[in-house]
């Protein structure tokens, strides 16, 4: 049977649920009513027509604007007529060999390969289909007949959705394997019957057996403690922790399980795993684009995420708070429960998730467009983050590969159509770290005052120049203002060029900074970067806090979402109601209210429903991919037909089911994965060569894949090794040392320069974990960028690990690397009493192990050699600037001016220990340390 629904209107929710619950995937059975089609007709309906539609008619339609080479492929008549190049030669009915079309699709004519895109070239089977169809007389049945034949004869399965823009899309069939993510979760796992131990091992080992691959042995304890500590906390194990684990006389499994439990209780666990989530949501502390304004106080969202992981906040709750925290407040209160100010603030902060993307509205922006940018962005982001579906394709058309009609894109978008931005003052939370805020405010106040002073002196100068000018003209005025008041004519006004470029340029910077600095005082107030539901107000380009209106329905327009033609906000077509994706099979009902409030909670309820096969698979796959460096499904943000298929689909389903059974506990999931034998495998396989043959894509999990430390981990692990790391949690963003040239390099923002990067003055303020670094979209730490920290424009599913020369420059030559090496040398010198012991200590702090005799000898030799070098050379201490002079061309006059920026916090700057601060031997040892911090064994985790 083949379920079909009326196409002319979006289907009602109830009907949809009924259909869906009746089983979404309906295998196509041959219809008894269709008269048996001829072979040529079948070829056309099943193969040729779909080809024409997906690969040809976009450029060869009957519409003259979309008709390349005068060739129209929308009807048989037009097709036989041919185009400008070949005319009737294009096809000889019944004789494919004589038809030029075959040459075109066979890509025989250079420059006329069809379709032009290499990635879309026809497969051999597709070319044969066209050939056979021409030979069969090139029949061209009408749409109704095609639909009939397609329904009766096409292979694959149909998928019930809210309906596409065409019937052909709505009724199209999919390869079942492309719909894997939309299948209900498998609940029965016969392969586990009779098996003991960790089910992950059972699933993985079963496939290994089938493929005839023997797994690597379990890794040793030393390898495991480094691996698991870095995995869960992003920090290395201390020598003491290593000793404890190595000397734990319980059996390996018990000892390791206890270690995992200990690490999961470490507050640093939350920091490390929040970092992964922040990649997915594109966290940054600024808006990006032209102004790159700081966003007070997105760090509160960052800390919310850290707390959520540390508290093992159930994932369903975590999702709901981020999508609908504000609605939760309203609903709880409406239900007669009261929430404390703290509880409310937490929820307002959480929902800041919706605003994590780059966004700005300037005087040069068009309001409807910037609003649409937000709507498109959040729709796509929610799709990728929670559902593993990149939805942006559906902005302009029904999805080419996945069962997502453009209608669904806009129905999802309608959920956010009443979501509005606001920055509201809440209360500080008891768990928020406010340390350092007062000092930071002090420096900010100074910057602000200096800038105000500048503006004041410019004003004085302006008055002087103006009054002089009026005097010279013999006019009775003192200022332009006065002259205007007195009704002076344009000719009696001083020219606007009266100011030289110096004053003009400085004033421009001063004014921009005045605005920025004033707004930035919000940093020190408990502002939450949040949303509310209501009408869409006209955005102002006043670069300032967006207030929450007293009545969210008073001003503006209540948006009515419609499918947008070509994605253009000025071209609305069919109106849609807020709704969730229609192709997802669910057992329950998830009505999304049409009222302006409550839409996002409904979305959250749907996403966090235990039987939502997308969201549950997506989250367990994400967690898995951070543990193994790859997902069971290889594209954690794309579970569609074009994403990589799961290598172990049953395991993925079992994990999802287990995750829900464990009340959405992420920590339980970590335990399950980390305690498996699979995760504890050695990264070295005894038969590496034959493994490479049997498993060329490393999909078997026969060995553990080593990984390079990620950008933030490299910095944190260096600080931990050198003993400089201040492990304090949370709070306002920190500003570590940035390569000085990059820090002071002028950076353009709208109409002026951005203020320079000035580090926190004290080492203990700077040397904190990298997750706390002030992450400005337009001015990231070069160190992080070169080690593949993702940009914060789009959701990052998994980081790259590239190997490029700037990494060498940063780690071998960079000031920060030297600082760490010196600190490490100083540390081990003070903690040990012999050169051998010092080398032992360095090895333990960097690689986590003792060096062998030969390594000790090598290190001692190098130490001695470098000490000799240092006897004859001096590495001078770095000088830190307290001001920077900017030379610029004023964009209005085209003339140069200079501007001096006072780097206030540098006046109190205490540098990290420098080479020149320590004795010659320690300098030599610092070179040994520098090399070990550059070593592969330091940077890779096995």
């Amino acid at each position, binding site marked *: 049977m083949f379920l079909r629904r009326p196409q002319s209107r979006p289907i009602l929710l109830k009907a949809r649920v009924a259909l869906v619950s009746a089983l979404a995937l309906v295998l196509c059975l041959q219809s008894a009513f269709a008269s048996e089609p001829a072979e040529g007709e079948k070829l056309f309906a099943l193969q040729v027509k779909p080809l024409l539609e997906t690969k040809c008619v976009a450029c060869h339609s009957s519409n003259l604007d979309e008709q390349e080479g005068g060739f129209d492929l929308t009807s048989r008549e037009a097709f036989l007529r041919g185009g400008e190049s070949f005319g009737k030669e294009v096809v000889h009915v019944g004789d494919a060999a004589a038809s030029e079309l075959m040459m075109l699709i066979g890509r025989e004519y250079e420059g006329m390969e069809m379709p032009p*895109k*290499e*990635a879309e070239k026809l497969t051999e089977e597709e070319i044969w289909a066209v050939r056979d169809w021409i030979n069969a007389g090139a029949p061209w049945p009408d749409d109704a007949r095609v639909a009939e034949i397609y329904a009766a004869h096409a292979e694959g399965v149909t998928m019930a959705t809210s309906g596409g823009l065409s019937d052909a899309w709505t009724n199209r069939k999919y390869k079942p394997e492309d719909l894997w993510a939309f299948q209900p979760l498998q609940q029965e796992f016969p392969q586990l019957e009779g098996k003991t131990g960790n089910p992950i091992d059972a699933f993985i080992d079963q496939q290994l057996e089938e493929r005839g691959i023997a797994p690597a042995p379990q890794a040793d304890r030393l390898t495991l403690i480094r691996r698991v500590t870095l995995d869960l906390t992003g920090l290395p194990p201390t020598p003491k922790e290593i000793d404890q684990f190595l000397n734990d006389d319980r059996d390996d499994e018990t000892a390791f399980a206890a270690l995992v439990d200990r690490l999961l209780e470490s507050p640093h666990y939350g920091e490390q795993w929040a970092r992964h989530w922040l990649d997915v949501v594109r966290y940054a502390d600024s808006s990006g684009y*032209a102004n790159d304004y700081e966003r007070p106080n997105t760090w509160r969202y960052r800390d919310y995420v850290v707390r959520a992981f540390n508290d093992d906040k159930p994932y369903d709750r975590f999702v709901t708070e981020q999508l609908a925290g504000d609605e939760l407040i309203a609903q709880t209160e409406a239900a007669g429960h009261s929430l404390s100010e703290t509880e409310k603030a937490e929820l307002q902060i959480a929902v800041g998730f919706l605003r994590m993307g780059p966004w700005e509205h300037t005087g040069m*922006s*068009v309001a409807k467009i910037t609003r649409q940018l937000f709507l498109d962005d959040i729709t796509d982001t929610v799709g990728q983050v929670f559902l593993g579906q990149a939805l942006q394709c559906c902005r302009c058309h029904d999805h080419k590969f996945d069962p997502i009609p453009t209608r669904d894109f806009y129905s999802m978008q309608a959920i956010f159509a009443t979501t509005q931005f606001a920055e509201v003052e809440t209360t500080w939370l008891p768990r928020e770290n406010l340390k350092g805020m007062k000092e930071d405010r002090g420096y900010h106040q100074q910057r602000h005052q200096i800038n105000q002073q500048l503006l004041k002196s410019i004003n004085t100068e302006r008055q002087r120049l103006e009054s002089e000018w009026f005097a010279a003209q013999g006019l009775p005025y003192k200022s332009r203002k006065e002259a205007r008041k007195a009704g002076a004519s344009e000719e009696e006004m001083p020219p*606007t*060029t009266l100011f030289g470029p110096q004053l003009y340029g400085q004033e421009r910077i001063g004014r921009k900074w005045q605005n920025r600095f004033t707004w930035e005082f919000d940093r020190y107030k408990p502002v939450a970067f949040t949303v509310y539901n209501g009408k869409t107000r006209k955005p102002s380009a006043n670069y300032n806090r967006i207030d929450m209106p007293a009545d969210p329905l008073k001003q503006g327009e209540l948006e009515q979402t419609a499918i947008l033609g070509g994605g253009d906000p000025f071209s609305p077509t069919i109106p849609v109601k807020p709704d969730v994706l229609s192709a997802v099979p669910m057992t329950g009902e998830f009505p999304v209210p049409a009222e302006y409030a409550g839409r996002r909670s409904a979305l959250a309820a749907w996403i966090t429903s235990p039987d939502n096969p997308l969201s549950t698979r997506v989250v367990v796959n994400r967690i898995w991919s951070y543990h193994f*460096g*790859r997902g069971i499904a290889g*594209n954690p*943000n794309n579970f569609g037909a*074009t994403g990589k298929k799961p290598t172990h689909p049953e395991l993925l389903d079992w994990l999802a089911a287990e995750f829900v059974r464990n009340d959405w506990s992420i920590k339980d999931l970590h335990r399950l994965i980390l305690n498996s034998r699979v995760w504890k495998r050695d*990264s070295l*396989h005894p038969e*590496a060569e034959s493994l490479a043959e049997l498993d*060329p894509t*490393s999909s078997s999990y026969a060995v553990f894949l080593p*990984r*390079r430390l990620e950008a933030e981990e490299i910095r944190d692990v260096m600080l931990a090794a050198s003993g400089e790391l201040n492990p304090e949690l949370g709070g306002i963003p920190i500003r570590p040392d940035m*390569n000085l*040239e990059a820090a002071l*390099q*002028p*950076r*353009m923002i709208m109409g002026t320069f951005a203020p320079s990067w000035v580090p926190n003055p004290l080492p203990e303020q700077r040397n904190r974990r990298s997750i706390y670094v002030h992450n400005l979209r337009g001015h990231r730490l070069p160190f992080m*960028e070169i080690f*593949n920290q993702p*940009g914060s*424009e789009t959701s990052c599913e*998994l980081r*790259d*690990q*590239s*190997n490029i020369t*700037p990494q*060498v*420059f940063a780690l071998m*030559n*960079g000031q920060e690397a030297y600082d760490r090496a010196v600190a490490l040398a100083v540390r081990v010198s003070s903690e040990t009493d012999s050169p051998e012991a010092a080398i032992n200590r360095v090895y333990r702090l960097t690689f986590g192990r003792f060096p062998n005799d030969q*390594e000790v000898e*090598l290190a001692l030799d190098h130490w001695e050699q470098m000490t000799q070098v240092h006897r004859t*050379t*001096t590495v*001078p201490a*770095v000088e830190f600037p307290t001001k920077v002079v900017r030379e610029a*061309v004023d*964009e*209005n*006059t*085209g*003339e140069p001016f200079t501007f001096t920026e006072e780097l206030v916090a540098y006046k109190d700057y205490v540098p990290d220990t420098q080479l020149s601060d320590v004795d010659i031997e320690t300098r030599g040892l610092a070179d040994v340390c*520098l*090399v*070990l911090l*550059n*070593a*592969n*064994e330091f940077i*890779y985790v096995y």
Partner: protein
Amino acid sequence: MNPNTSYTGPMFARRDFLYSLTASLGPVAFSSMLAQAASEQNAKPSRVAHFPEAKAKHCIFLYMEGGPSHVDTFDPKPKLSELHMQEFQRNDERQSAMSSGKRYYVESPFKFAKHGESGADICDRWEHLPKVADELCFYRGCQVESVNHPTANYHVNTGNRFGGDPSIGAWVTYGLGSENADLPGFIVLPELAFPQGGAANWSNGYLPTALQGTPLRSKGSPILDIAPPAGVSRDHQRKNLDYLQEVNSRLASRHPEHADLAARMQNYELAFRMQTQVPEVLSLDNETQQTLDNYGIDQQPTDNFGRRCLLARKLVEKGVRFVQVYASTWDSHDYIAKAHGALIPTVDKPIAALIADLKERGLLDETLIVWMGEFGRTPDNGVRGGGLAYGRDHNPNAMTVWMAGGGCKAGHTIGATDELGATAVENVHHIRDFHVTLLRLLGLDDNKLTYYHAGRFKQLSQFGGQIISELIG
């Protein structure tokens, strides 16, 4: 071993370290690595242009950041003199706050004349460019979408207004590779201040990291941290590198299957060589005084841009594939006479010298020069506080782009704008078509130069475009 780093593109082999290492490992080591990579990915090991007959092998992209005014440079509009100061009102929900409200027309303060045999329109502030007028191919039909600088910069540089995608230079280097193993294939010569939108303007996007444009900073260290701290000698570094080699050897022998280990160590050696080579390349010591004079080096106001133009020529000679040179800032909202009047002489002489120099060296044919900004400017201005200031706002609907060398249609002016210069009306093409044409001139087919990412094959033009055949010689 992160699967995300693997190449899935159709053109060539896998992980990006290959780029930084190409040939620097010595032919044997490299070819064996490549063979391994090729067999893994079943990809072609060498990069051959899709259109071998294309002349351009290199590109020097002169990026006039801020949006130069076409009507005050290369697209004369006498009609504006008639309308000068005439006021009008514009209200349209498709317009920004800035371009709405009370406005007035502004004539160009500059005089225009026809130059060369081709009769190219060039305003009188350009004194040197007319000498090479017949080498230029002006295009007046290009349109973009964004009116904000960073998004417009991203659009011109990457084909995507929102940034995050690979830039043209990254695509071209991906397609053609680099001819010099010790230098990046894509080099950017920015102003001291990076343009709005920052380094994302020369991003590798989803292409391998090694394809990212390497900015050679115009002051201080050309590449961040390329030099060790003061006092650390080359010998000092060599000793540290030798020790590193020894330290690394234990792990390498334990994990022969882990190819990253050797690659990373090789990268240290490459970096060590680059430390001496980059300053050599940057040095202008071997240039004749005549050359320096031609480019306006050690003269004002040309020194800054002239140095970078000369450097661009040197880099192209060294085999660098794509060089982008920035000149800022053309964002003349007010006082166009002074602002553009001062800016044009900073780039005029260096650009004319660059074209002449390449020609003299027989390199102009194989080097495509592109001159453009992120958009054009409006024929009208808004009335803002402080009186009328004769400037222009941003205009995505009309601009002038010109090219020279590299097989472009020199000596022609293609396309036209309306009588005010408000919008392109003849041979009108979206920037994506210009991108496709640019690639075509460099021998690359936008439809073949694709990379599989996030579920589809992506390309510079985003969804494909059309070659503007009139621009090809």
